[in-house]
C-alpha cells in the first residue's frame, strides 16, 4: 500500500474494487456458443411467439438500451472509464438515422415538415444534405459517434485526465449537446426532436409486419455486438484493458500506452451506442434531446450497474430488466418509480458493486469465503491508500 500524500492522487483511482471475474476458462468456448444459441432462440423463437405486437415493440426498445449497455460494460466495467455521456453517441446515431429517414419521407428536393414550421427555411442546411444519401447516413450512424469519441478520448486520455474528471467531462458533453440541439430549433427540431418518422427504406413503419422486421434486425444487432464484445474481452487487448483499469502506471512501465488502450474501448463503446441509437429510431419513431441528455445517459449506466458492470451478459440483462421495470412501474406509480430508481442505484452501487452478477459468482465462491465476517460486521473500507484489485483466487 502506498500512502496517498495529497488528494490529487485519489481522483485517479481505478473505478472500484473490481467485481469478481466472470471467467471460467474451462469449456468457455463451448459454453459461450451454447449461451449464444440459447439467446438467439429466446430472441427469435420465444419472444415473437409469446409477446403481442405491442410488447414486442417495447422489447425492441429495451434491446436498443441493452446495446448501449454492452458498450458501457466494456468502457466502464472492463476499462474503468465511467462514461456518463453515452447519450451523446446514442443521439448522434439516432439523429443521423432520423435525418435520413426524414429526408426520405419528405421526398427528393422537399424540406422535412418541421423546418417549414419553425425554421422558415427555403433550402436544406448544408450539413443536412449528405444525409439524403443512405450511403452516407448509414455508415455515419456508427462512424460519427466513433469519430467524436476518438477526438475527445484522445485529447483527454493522452493528457491523463481520468477517473472523476473524465466522468464529469463526459457528462458535460451530454449537457452541451442537448443545449445545442434545443437551441438550434430551426434545423434540429429543438425540444421536440425529429418526430413522426413514417418510412424505413421504403417500408411503412406503421405496419406491424415491418415493426416485427425491425425487431428482428435489432435482435440480430444485439447478438452481433455481444459476439464482438466477447471476442474483444477474451483477446489479448481485453486483458490489457483490465490491466489498465487496475494499474495504469504498471501498464505504462511495461511499455504499453494506456491512452491508446482506453481510446479504443471508448470508441468501441461509442460505436455501439451509435448503432443502438440508429436502430432505436425505426423502432420508436422519434429521437429527441430528452432521450439523450444527462438523465438518460445516467440511466444507461444504472442497468449496467445493476446487472454487473464487469460481465458480458450482466449489462444486457440489467439494462433490459431496469427498462422493463421502468415501463411497468412508472405508468402506474410515477412518483414511486423515481424513488425506486434512486434507491436501486444507491443500494446496488454502495452495497453490491459487482451488480446482480456478483451474487451469482458469490454463490460459487461462498465456500472459499466462509471465513469472511458477515456484511453487518464488516468495517467500512479504509479512506486512504489505494484500493488494489486483488488477483482472483484461482
Amino acid at each position, binding site marked *: 500500500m502506498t500512502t496517498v500524500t495529497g488528494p490529487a492522487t485519489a481522483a485517479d483511482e481505478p473505478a472500484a474494487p473490481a467485481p469478481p471475474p466472470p471467467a471460467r476458462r474451462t469449456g468457455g468456448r463451448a459454453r459461450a456458443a451454447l449461451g449464444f444459441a440459447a439467446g438467439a432462440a429466446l430472441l427469435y423463437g420465444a419472444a415473437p411467439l409469446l409477446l403481442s405486437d405491442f410488447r414486442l415493440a417495447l422489447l425492441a426498445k429495451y434491446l436498443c438500451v441493452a446495446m448501449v449497455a454492452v458498450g458501457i460494460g466494456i468502457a466502464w466495467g472492463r476499462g474503468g472509464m*465511467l462514461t456518463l455521456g453515452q447519450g451523446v453517441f446514442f443521439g448522434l446515431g439516432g439523429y443521423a438515422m432520423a435525418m435520413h429517414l426524414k429526408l426520405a419521407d419528405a421526398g427528393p428536393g422537399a424540406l422535412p415538415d418541421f423546418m417549414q414550421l419553425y425554421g422558415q427555411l427555403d433550402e436544406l442546411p448544408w450539413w443536412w444534405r449528405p444525409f439524403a444519401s443512405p450511403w452516407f447516413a448509414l455508415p455515419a450512424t456508427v462512424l460519427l459517434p466513433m469519430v467524436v469519441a476518438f477526438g475527445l478520448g484522445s*485529447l483527454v486520455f493522452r493528457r491523463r485526465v481520468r477517473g472523476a*474528471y473524465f466522468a464529469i467531462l463526459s457528462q458535460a458533453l451530454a449537457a452541451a449537446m442537448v443545449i445545442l440541439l434545443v*437551441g438550434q430549433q430551426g434545423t434540429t427540431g429543438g425540444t421536440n426532436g425529429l418526430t413522426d418518422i413514417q418510412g424505413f427504406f421504403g417500408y411503412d413503419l406503421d405496419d406491424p409486419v415491418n415493426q416485427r422486421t425491425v425487431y428482428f434486425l435489432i435482435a440480430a444487432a444485439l447478438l452481433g455486438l455481444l459476439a464482438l464484445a466477447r471476442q474483444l474481452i477474451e483477446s489479448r487487448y481485453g486483458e490489457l484493458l483490465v490491466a489498465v483499469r487496475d494499474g495504469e502506471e504498471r501498464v505504462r512501465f511495461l511499455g504499453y500506452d494506456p491512452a491508446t488502450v482506453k481510446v479504443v474501448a471508448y470508441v468501441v463503446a461509442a460505436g455501439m451506442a451509435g448503432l443502438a441509437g440508429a436502430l432505436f429510431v425505426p423502432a420508436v419513431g422519434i429521437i429527441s434531446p430528452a432521450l439523450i441528455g444527462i438523465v438518460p445517459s445516467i440511466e444507461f449506466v444504472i442497468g449496467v450497474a445493476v446487472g454487473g458492470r464487469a460481465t458480458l451478459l450482466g449489462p444486457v440483462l440489467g439494462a433490459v430488466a431496469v427498462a422493463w421495470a421502468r415501463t411497468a412501474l412508472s405508468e402506474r406509480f410515477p412518483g414511486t418509480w423515481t424513488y425506486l430508481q434512486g434507491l436501486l442505484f444507491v443500494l446496488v452501487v*454502495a452495497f453490491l458493486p459487482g451488480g446482480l452478477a456478483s451474487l451469482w459468482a458469490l454463490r460459487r465462491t461462498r465456500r472459499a469465503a466462509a471465513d469472511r465476517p458477515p456484511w453487518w460486521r464488516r468495517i467500512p473500507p479504509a479512506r486512504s491508500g489505494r484500493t488494489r484489485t486483488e488477483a482472483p483466487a484461482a
Partner: protein
Amino acid sequence: MTVLFGQLFTGVSIGAVLLLVALGLALTFGQMNVINMAHGEFIMAGAYTTYVLQQTITSAGWSLLVALPVAFAVAGALGVLLEVLLIRRLYARPLDTLLVTWGVSLMLQQAARDIFGSPNVQTRAPALLTGNVALPGGVTVANNRLFILGLAVAAVVALTLALRLTPLGRRIRAVVQNRDLAAVSGIATARVDRTTFFVGSGLAGVAGVALTLLGPIGPTMGTNLIIDAFLVVVVGGIGQLKGSVIVAFALGVLQATGEYLTTLSVAKVIVFVAIVAFLQWRPQGLFTLRTRSLA
C-alpha cells in the same frame, strides 16, 4: 465601451453564482474527493427553505436574512445525513460516490415534488434588492446581482479564513494532506469528515438562497447548475479554493461574451471546448497541490 462593461459585469455575476455553487463542491470534491451529485439538491433545499420561511416571516428582507443561516443548517444537516448513511462507506471509491449520490438526488427531487408540487414556486425579493444601480460610465447593475456578488465574496473570505486560522480549519487541511498522519496525530478524522461535509453542503444551501433572487424555485433547479459547478472545480484544480475562484469568474465572462457574440447554446459549446483545450495545457487544473506520490 458601455457594452463591454455591461457584458463584463454580466459575466462576473454569472461567475458569482457559479462560485457560490462551486465553493461547497470545492470542499467536498476538492478536499475530500467525494463527487456529490446531490449537491444540486442541497441547493434546492436552500431555495425551498427561503420559500417556506417567507410563508411565516412576511417581510421579504427579514426572511432572506433569516434564510441564510437556516438554509446553511438545513442543507448542512442533509449533507451530514448523507455522509453518515452512505458516503462514509465509499471514501475509497470516488466514482461510485457519484452514482450513489445521483440516486440520492433523484429521490430528493421526487421528495420536493411530493412536498411542494411539481410547478415552480417563487419568492418575493426585498424592495432593496429589486432596483438597479447606475455606475459611472453609463452601466446599470441590478441590485440583486450585486448582492449575490457580495455574498460570494463574503463566502470565499469566510471559508478561506476559517480554513487558515481556526483549529477546525487546520484539522481539515491536515486530513486532506495526509489522512494517516493526521489520524496518528490524534485528529478524529471521521469527525473532521463530517464537519467538512456539513460546511460544504451548507454552502450549497446559501447558494440556494441566492438563487431565489434570480429565478423560480423548482425540483430540478439544481441539476442544471451542478455540472457547470463541477467543471469549475475540475478546471480550478482540486484542493485549492483560489483555482475555483479564478475559474468561476473566467467561465462566467467567457459564457457572457460567447452569448453576446453568438447564442446561448453555442456559448455553452464554446465553454466546453475551452475547458477541454485548457485541460490539454494543465490536465490537473489551474492549481494543484504538489505531491510526491506516484499517481
